[in-house]
């Protein structure tokens, strides 16, 4: 598979030629069908990590008949190594709000809510002011839609869409069974579109610059660009918007410190790419899809410690509702520590990989299902570090 060259893009943070409220006005001149079909045609996929086609989500919600529909902005960014949503909400909140307003117009919703993680409460004073102003502007241009904000309380799992609804409804943040999907029955049992912060900005940008210009960036499977949160052993830690479809080798050449041993693509629930696979691994939906977390590790780092850290994270953040995830995460920590101490044969690692495969099939939500990603990619590629 041919990969794209590393290309910097500036759709998200560049504000020249884009007055957010004007973009909403532009959308209001289109029909609801046209707005939805533009987003479908653009090929935009969710930027939170799961990668569901955004336009289809909007279409499903638009086709539902209901007295109340909701647009929710998922700002419960908790994946280790991810910090782009905070930056977007801090720097260009109006673009997020205009994405929400455009969605509201398209699906016929009057109420929007931003679910902001509790760790980002320091953003609230500024954000509340901007929301008030934006709501005012919306009523001036005649769109009956208003946004409010809700705070989280330090639970990673609430980034899972149905857990987020439970939390907003005043319950424990335990994911629901799907189906029904949120577009049919979401917050308060009403049709709900829930999109990631970055996704909402891209929807506004697609309306602003047109489908073709957006589609010209990226690849067949991964249209457009993506905001990456780069951290770890890198001289260029920070937020970088790049065209999708590049390979890890080019990424490391730009961001590595010259001694990169592995890159964790997609945070704790993502995949670990070792040096030998840099060239053949594409960052995008045809390779490794990601919410944007890129943690770079150089040769001084112990991958056992990295894995252990991720496992502790999962064990703590598992909601405990379903057994494979609750027990599985704890057994994995116990298992890798036993192997490290020499109390278990190294073959036991293979059994643990099997356990993660079971968790992938049997867990109710993405948390338990994705433990296998980092576990098997780290254990397979750095087996000797797990044992000695």
């Amino acid at each position, binding site marked *: 598979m041919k990969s794209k060259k590393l290309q910097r893009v500036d759709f998200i943070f560049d504000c020249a030629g884009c007055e957010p409220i004007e973009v909403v006005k532009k959308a209001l001149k289109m029909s609801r069908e046209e707005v939805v079909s533009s987003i479908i045609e653009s090929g935009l996929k969710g930027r939170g990590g799961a990668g569901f086609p955004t336009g289809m989500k909007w279409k499903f919600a638009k086709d539902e008949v209901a007295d109340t529909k909701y647009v929710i902005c998922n700002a419960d960014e908790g994946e280790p190594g991810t910090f782009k949503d905070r930056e977007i909400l801090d720097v260009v909140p109006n673009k997020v709000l205009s994405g929400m307003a455009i969605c509201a117009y398209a699906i016929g919703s009057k109420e929007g809510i931003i679910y902001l993680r509790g760790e980002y409460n320091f953003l*609230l004073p500024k954000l509340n002011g901007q929301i008030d102003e934006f709501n005012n502007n919306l009523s001036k241009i005649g769109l009956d839609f208003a946004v409010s904000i809700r705070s989280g309380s*330090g639970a990673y799992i609430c980034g899972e869409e149905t857990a987020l609804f439970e939390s907003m*409804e*005043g319950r424990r943040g335990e994911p629901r069974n799907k189906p029904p999907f949120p577009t049919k029955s979401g917050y308060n049992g009403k049709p709900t579109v829930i999109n990631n912060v970055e996704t909402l900005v891209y929807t506004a940008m697609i309306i602003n610059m047109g489908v073709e210009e957006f589609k010209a960036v990226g690849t067949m499977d991964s249209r457009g660009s993506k905001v990456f949160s780069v*951290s770890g052993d890198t001289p260029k830690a920070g937020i970088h918007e790049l065209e999708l479809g590049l390979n890890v080798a080019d990424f490391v050449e730009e961001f590595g410190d010259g001694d990169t041993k592995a890159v964790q693509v997609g945070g704790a629930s993502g995949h670990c790419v070792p040096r030998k696979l840099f060239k053949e691994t594409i960052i995008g939906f045809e390779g490794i899809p990601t919410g944007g977390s890129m943690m770079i590790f150089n040769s001084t780092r112990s991958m056992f410690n990295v894995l252990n850290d991720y496992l502790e994270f999962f064990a703590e953040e598992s909601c405990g509702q379903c057994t494979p995830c609750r027990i599985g995460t704890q057994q994995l920590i116990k298992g890798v520590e036993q192997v490290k101490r020499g109390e278990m044969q190294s073959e036991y690692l293979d059994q643990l990989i099997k356990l993660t495969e079971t968790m992938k099939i049997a867990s109710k939500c993405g948390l338990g299902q994705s433990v296998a990603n980092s576990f098997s990619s780290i254990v397979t590629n750095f087996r000797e570090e797990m044992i000695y």
Partner: protein
Amino acid sequence: MKNYICYSINNTLNQFNMADTEKLVEQLVTQHGKTRNSLLPVLQGVVREEHFLSDTAMIAIAKALNLSSADVYGTASFYTFLETEPRGENIIRVCKTITCKMKGKQQVIEAIENHLKIKEGETTRNKKFTLLAANCLGWCHKGPVMLVNDDVYPHVAPDQIVDILDKYC
């Protein structure tokens, strides 16, 4: 100069009487609405004022929202930030996730422990500070990072700890 109020051992702060708590709950319920959807904002409001959820507070919330107190406790205990144990007036959370670990969060924790004479997870005797470790706080490019209440301190160095904490005395 040491701020003596901050480091004195005896402190009568952080003691709330029942009537005040019930009044606070009443205010919050009026503000957010008398439905279950308001449960989290109400719980968050109590934690903001009283730093943790006392039995009195949870029982009052249960009554006001027409829920069982077990249901209120069950919900609150799910969330890391909704403390059900007494906590200090200021809560320090140091990010413990891998990138902050790589950038020296342990030295930051040790500096805080030495300064406040408490261990991770503990509260100072005067109830001024509680020190906790937190999962990823979303500042991986500027680690190590710590939160004091809602305030963020990215790129925090061990030698800044005394000055930062003095601000909360």
